[in-house]
Each structure stands twice: as structure tokens, then as C-alpha cells.
């Protein structure tokens, strides 16, 4: 009996200790004196090694100016979100982190990031230095932002100039033209296709679920509630997956393309005539042997009668973990990374559209391409839903589209009813995350 009492007491004690440990979990990465920061950067260059090369001189310069050492880790896109989620959950993570700007609302809702309230915003140079549309992606609608824009990005339709001129085609201005051009350029027997897609990448797929829905004038969220099964959303998804299914202008093997680089490599090698990509494709294309003058870029076209939307407001934002032991150093680092001089240095290698007011774009030497992307970013982009369930929307809808492409690639068919069923399942899962 005595033993049982002891066991009961011990159990309770252990549980209390464990819960206390869970709820207090501290940040890591700080040595005494706050002279070392841990920074997780996203993969913006051609490879993780390339990112380290690009960032090393910037971080060395920061250390020279402030005496603060930055421990860099570059995290690939296929597991960046999971790493951040795990860090948020455990409370053990870096001091400063790059996030996809569409994740900002849900990460803000977790409460894990430091809000840029007026004091913190002043410490990084004030909110007036940022382009307002870029800064608006920094958190939940109507709340203090928990991330600030670092790199601005936008989607475009890249086309192979030579393949187009040989076929006597001009770049498409409507979705229907894009499909008919792609059909003319497809020759499955030689393995050449009109379009290439990262059809196994949930992050890419979900962007097109969003863009096609916006083109149809449909909204993915009704207030803060997911609304994935409306006609506009479902027919948008169908239009996108039909590029592989009924138009047959996308090689079914693209269903296994997951890391955001394979379709670009096919494009550079002349195996596909068009790709959809953000404006930072140049480094990847040239590293695969394509010269910059061999391709042109136009806005991703809308279907006839649709709304002129070609992109979400894409980009990378910078956040500080709330439990950092080096808050001041972290804010100094954010200030440095979002300063005009650093932005000028990183703008070219990362092909970033300026997120600061009055900064000249350096992301390309091609005036036509610069004009296309500036037009897309400023006039043809829509913000992603600024709601806490945005993260769950991305994973569930993105994975639903991955599944549809997999079905098509393995000789199945996806009807409009199948799309609706899959989107309903994604919606149920998204609701469960709230």
C-alpha cells in the first residue's frame, strides 16, 4: 500500500515536472553576452552551398560592424516548414528565421514570434522603409506583424524564345492561347512537352490553386473559414491539373517533381517550352546551361473573361523567435538584412523584387523581364489569405493537388466531382487544425 502511494505521488510529481518543462522550453543559440545568433535561411540560390557562399560575406560584414557572430544554417524548402513547426512546438529553435511570407499568418497565430510593435519596429529602422503591400503580408489581418519582408518574388511564365519562333508562335496572352501554343510545341514521341510543372511540390501546387481561384474571382476563405469547394475554386484546380490530364502538354513524369528545380532543368535543356516560375529562376537556368537571352517572360495569363491575376504576393519574410535570449542582437540583424545596402547586395543573386521603397531593382539586366515582373508584382498580384489557417490550407490543398497529379500520371482520371471531393477532404482537415 505504501509503495502504491509512493508511486502515485511520484507519478503526479513527474507529470508536473514534465508539463512545466514543456511550457517553459527556452530558446537556444545564445552564448553569454548575446554575441552569437543562430539564423535559419531559406534556400534562395541555386543550391544550399550556393546560399552559404552568397550569405557568408554579408554575415562577415555584419560581424565587422556589430561584433555579433551569426551561425548560419540554410534549410531546404522540402523541410523548412516542418523544421519551423518543430521549433515552434518545442520552443527550441534559432533566434532569427526566414519564412515563406504566406506562412506569416499562421505562425503569427502560434504566438512563437516576436511582434514588431512600435519599439521593435523602430529598432529595425521603422515601418516606413518597406513597400506597404510587402509589409502587409507580415502577419494576421488587423494585428501587429510578426515578420517583415526580406525578398519580394512574383510568378511569371518563362518561354523558350527559339522554340516559339521556330513554331511561328508569339507568347500567349490568355490561358487558352497558352494551352494551344503548348499543344503545338508538344511532341511526346521525342519527349518534348509544351509545359513543365513541379507537379509533386505541394508548395508550388497550392500557389496555383490560389492563382486560378483568384482568376475565377473565387475566394479560398470566407472570413477566417476555409471555403475550398466553391465552383470557382474547383474549376480553377481542374483547369490547372488538366494541363497534364486532358491538354496533355505536361509530361506525366512531372508528378514526381518535388523540389522546385527539376522543371527548370528540363526547360533549360529544351525539353519543355514553358515553365511557370518565380522571378528567381535565372541562376538555376544558367547553371543548367541556358543563356539568359534564350528565354523571355510574360505574365501567367488568365482565361478569357477572367480576372487579371498572375501571382500571389510571393516572398520571404524575416522573423525573430520570441524566446530568443539575444533580442537586441536579433533586431540589429533584422535591421541590417532589411537595409538598403544589404538589399542591394542580395537583390541580384537572389533575384529579389525590392521590398524597400525607392530601391532600384537589381534582379535582372533584362529590361523587358524587369518590367514584366514589376508589373506582375505591383498590378497583377493578390495577397494570400491573412488568416491563421493559411498554413493548414497550404499543406492540405497542396497535398490534395499532388495526389490528383499522381492519379493522372498513373493512368487514372480526375473528374470535376473528384476534385470537389478531394477539396472537401482538404477543407475538413484544415478545419481540424483550427
Amino acid at each position, binding site marked *: 500500500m505504501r509503495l502504491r502511494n509512493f508511486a502515485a505521488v511520484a*507519478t503526479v510529481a513527474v507529470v508536473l515536472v514534465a508539463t512545466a518543462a*514543456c*511550457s517553459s522550453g527556452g530558446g537556444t543559440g545564445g552564448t553569454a553576452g548575446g554575441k552569437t545568433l543562430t539564423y535559419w535561411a531559406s534556400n534562395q540560390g541555386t543550391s544550399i552551398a550556393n546560399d552559404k557562399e552568397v550569405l557568408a560575406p554579408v554575415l562577415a560584414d555584419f560581424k565587422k560592424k556589430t561584433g555579433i557572430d551569426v551561425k548560419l544554417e540554410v534549410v531546404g524548402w522540402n523541410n523548412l*516548414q516542418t523544421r519551423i*513547426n518543430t521549433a515552434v512546438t518545442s520552443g527550441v529553435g534559432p533566434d532569427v528565421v526566414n519564412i515563406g511570407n504566406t506562412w506569416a499568418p499562421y505562425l503569427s497565430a502560434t504566438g512563437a514570434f516576436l511582434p514588431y510593435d512600435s519599439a521593435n519596429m523602430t529598432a529595425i529602422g521603422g515601418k516606413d522603409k518597406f513597400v506597404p503591400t510587402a509589409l502587409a503580408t507580415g502577419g494576421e489581418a488587423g494585428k501587429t506583424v510578426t515578420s517583415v519582408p526580406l525578398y519580394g518574388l512574383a510568378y511569371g511564365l518563362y518561354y523558350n524564345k527559339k522554340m516559339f519562333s521556330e513554331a511561328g508562335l508569339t507568347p500567349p496572352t490568355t490561358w487558352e492561347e497558352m494551352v494551344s501554343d503548348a499543344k503545338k510545341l508538344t511532341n511526346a514521341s521525342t519527349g518534348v512537352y509544351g509545359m513543365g510543372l513541379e507537379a509533386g511540390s505541394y508548395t508550388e501546387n497550392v500557389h496555383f490553386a490560389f492563382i486560378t481561384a483568384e482568376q475565377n474571382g473565387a475566394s479560398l476563405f470566407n472570413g477566417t473559414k476555409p471555403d475550398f469547394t466553391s465552383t470557382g475554386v474547383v474549376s480553377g484546380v481542374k483547369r490547372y491539373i488538366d494541363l497534364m490530364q486532358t491538354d496533355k502538354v505536361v509530361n506525366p513524369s512531372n*508528378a514526381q517533381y*518535388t523540389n522546385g528545380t527539376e522543371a527548370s532543368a528540363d526547360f533549360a535543356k529544351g525539353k519543355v517550352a514553358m515553365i511557370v516560375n518565380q522571378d528567381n529562376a535565372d541562376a538555376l537556368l544558367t547553371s543548367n546551361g541556358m543563356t539568359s537571352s534564350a528565354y523571355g517572360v510574360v505574365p501567367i495569363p488568365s482565361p478569357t473573361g477572367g480576372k487579371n491575376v498572375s501571382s500571389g504576393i510571393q516572398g520571404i519574410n524575416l522573423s525573430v523567435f520570441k524566446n530568443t535570449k539575444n533580442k537586441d542582437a536579433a533586431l540589429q540583424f533584422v535591421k541590417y538584412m532589411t537595409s538598403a545596402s544589404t538589399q542591394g547586395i542580395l537583390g541580384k543573386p537572389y533575384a529579389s523584387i525590392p521590398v524597400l521603397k525607392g530601391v532600384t531593382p537589381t534582379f535582372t539586366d533584362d529590361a523587358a523581364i524587369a518590367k514584366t515582373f514589376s508589373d506582375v508584382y505591383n498590378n497583377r498580384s493578390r495577397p494570400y489569405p491573412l488568416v491563421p489557417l493559411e498554413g*493548414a490550407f497550404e499543406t492540405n490543398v497542396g497535398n490534395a493537388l499532388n495526389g490528383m497529379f499522381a492519379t493522372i*500520371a498513373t493512368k487514372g482520371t480526375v473528374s470535376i466531382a473528384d476534385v470537389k471531393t478531394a477539396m472537401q477532404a482538404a477543407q*475538413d482537415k484544415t478545419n481540424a487544425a483550427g
Partner: protein
Amino acid sequence: MVLELFIHVAPMVVGIWMSFIKLTQLYIANWSAAPFLGFGNYSVALDFNAAQGSSLLRSFFTTCIFTIFVVGISWVLGMAAAVALQRSFWGRGFLRTLFLIPYAVPMYAGIIAWKFMFQQQTGAINFILSSLHLVGPDTKPFWLIGSNALVSVIVVAIWRMWPFAFLMLMAGLQSVSEDLYEASALDGARPFRQWRSITLPSLGQVNTVLLLVMFLWTFNDFNTPFILFGGNQPPAGDLISMHIYNASFVNLSFGFGSAMSVLLLLFLLIVTGIYLFITNRRSKDA
């Protein structure tokens, strides 16, 4: 005693407690604020008409099929290899080592190698199949997406599991006396008869434990699907441990994930209990 409780029991208790609260993205930075749900998470998991429940049920059945094939085939392969290597012959040591390689290769490296081999365009599997003219160049199957994904993950799991069966059965066979085989050979028993009447009964205890351990490991297997599918498993390969992981770490629904874990724990406890009850009774009868 206290240490044992801390290491062993505390995580389970915390897990069970988590399954009763609404631990979503809004509360993971501050668990204590999460509202108490009672059996709310469980009723979602067990409502098989809704999306969450039906996908859990499908994942459960997928895992059952996965487990039956992996444990069954691994056991057969392990047994065949152990019996084949029971008698001493030239090169036995080499074959033993060779058979144990999959068990010795670091898990991550081994499974990544399989992942490359299963690629549709460039993988070794499709290269071999098309060299043998089993598939045409335009009809190369996908192995990592679509319905073949279950076959792929079963193959890789068997590759990992069967050397363990082989090792255990080989150890068990060391205790079987050569005299028994010689005596039965004098009585005119053929090899299969010898295997059924001498080898199998002698391995009774080993098999009881081996099958149970393999069942538990396989049913809970996380590494194989996670590495093979890169955390983004196709529906056909949606094994239950990955399913729970996705609910927890991707959708940040830890309460719901914990509820599913507790259900999995209960299922495994019940199966193990029944299994041990039956095998104990049988060995007492014998």
C-alpha cells in the same frame, strides 16, 4: 523507481493528457491555455463517415496489409535462409554476412538508395524492367506515387526486416541437436518432414517472441515510409505512424494526433494481450 517513471511513464501520461485537449497551432506555444475537449478528439478520429475518420480507417487498413506482408514474407525468407545455412559448408560465413548486410547498413542510406532505384525516369528498377522488356519505354510505372507506392514500401520494409528474422531463427537453430536430424533421417524422414516435425517445434519459443516483435515494429514503422516518401506519402502508402505524424507536425493538431496515438496504443495492447494469452495457453497445453 523515480527515474523509471520519469523516462518511461511520463511521456505516455503527457501524451494521453494531450489527447484530451484542443492542442492546435493557436496553443502550442502555451499548452496550458489549450481548452479541455474531453473525448472530442476521439470522436473526430472515430467518426468514419467524415474525412478525418475515414482517412484514419483507410490508413489503418493499409497498415494492416503492410504488416501482414512484411512480417509474413520476412519470416519465410528468414526461415529459409536460416535452414539453408544450418549445416556447415564452405562459404557459409560469407553468406551469413551477406544476408545480414541490410540490417547493418545505416537505415537512412539504405532507404535513400531504394528511393533512387524507384524513380520513374531514371531509377534502376524501371531500367531493369525495361531491359527485360517487361515494360515499354512509354509505360514505365511510377513506384513512389499512385497505387504502386504500397508495393514499394512493403519491399523496402521486407528488405530491412528479414535479416532480423534470419538472425533470430539462426540463433534458435543452434540449440537443436544434430542427433535428432540423424535419427529421423534413419527413419526415412524427408527434409520438409524434418523441418515440420523437428525444426519448427524446436523454434516455438523463438517464433512466439519473433513474430510479436516484428509485428509491433512493422505496425509502428515510421522511418521506412518517412524516408522513402520524403514526408509526403501518397494515399496508397499512408501508413499509420506517418498519418499521425502529419496530423501532429504538419497540421499542428497535436491533440488530435495524440488521440490517434492513444487509439493505436490501445489496439496494439489488445492484439499483444490476445496473442500472448493464446500462445501461453498453447504452450501450457503442449
